[in-house]
């Protein structure tokens, strides 16, 4: 698994496209539902884009307490799917939303917190992590 993060509009998508030429692109920005089960995958290289927006949906539909645990389950099942065949790869793109001022709205604060925790879990379970900064990558893991 490869986790890609960085600020908004920093060229993350372009960088991923250039590196992998992935066939299946599942995007929260296009309102695609989160593929919680791996039988939604029909290609070998899968991009999951807009992790923070799927988390936002979760935060808006229930309290924040179980979201992180649920995500751990999703990530583990993606990883298991990936390991079943040699050339499978899950590429996850999540925008960094952690560095602004504390949001006024409680839901937004929860969203920001939960997103930070899940990004830590994603980093933990990924083989590779990159930050994209205006088109340039910095490999963190």
């Amino acid at each position, binding site marked *: 698994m490869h986790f890609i993060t960085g600020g908004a*509009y920093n060229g993350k998508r372009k960088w991923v496209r250039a590196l992998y030429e992935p066939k299946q692109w599942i995007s929260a920005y296009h309102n695609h539902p989160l593929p919680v089960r791996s039988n939604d995958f029909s290609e070998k290289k899968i991009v999951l884009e807009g992790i*923070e927006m799927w988390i936002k949906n979760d935060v808006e539909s229930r309290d924040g307490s179980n979201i992180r645990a649920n995500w751990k389950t999703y990530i583990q099942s993606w990883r298991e799917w990936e390991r079943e065949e040699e050339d499978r790869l899950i590429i996850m793109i999540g925008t*960094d*939303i952690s560095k*602004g001022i504390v949001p006024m709205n409680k839901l937004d604060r929860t969203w*920001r917190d939960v997103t930070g925790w899940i990004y830590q879990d994603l980093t933990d379970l990924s083989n590779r992590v990159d930050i994209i900064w*205006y*088109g*340039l990558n910095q490999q963190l893991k």
Partner: protein
Amino acid sequence: MEKAPVYFITGGVRSGKSTFAEEIAHELARTHSGTLLYYLACGRAQDEEMQKRIELHQQSRQNSVIPWALGEFPRNIDHSIPFYSKQTIVLLDCLTTWLDNELFSINSGLSKEHLQNVMRNMLESIETIRKHCYSLIVVSNEVLHEPLTSNEIVQAYQKTIGKLHQELVARSNQAYLVEAGIPILMKGNR
């Protein structure tokens, strides 16, 4: 005509990015004799606090061993070209303020067309300036790390900044991110 190298420097508010930009300028001036320093300011003092910040930066440049010439161009910064030569190190401070001035001085809203025009013109100005100076140092702000708003105008603005920064980084010889006074080299070699 040969184009001057670009040094791109960003950082958060009060990160020390302007100070670091001045250091780069001094270093370039020291290592290339005969060069001059030109400070291209895009900020307009709209309140007392802004005025104080400007004075603080002016003071630091007055104490400098190599003297700075100052030009204030809130918009159309390529109009500064007559004031310098191929021996001049130009420090542009800063890109986001300049963008704001270009975007909001005409009351045309933030239509896609307007944003694209402004961005294209700004990049053209930068390329024109590069043909008329020795080096160009561009300072900008890190503003894209907070939750995206659902406000479309803000989104369009953020997208424009992101694209401008990507363009600047692509054109730069060196690019730095300044964190708490510490410059991190993101592109190029020192």
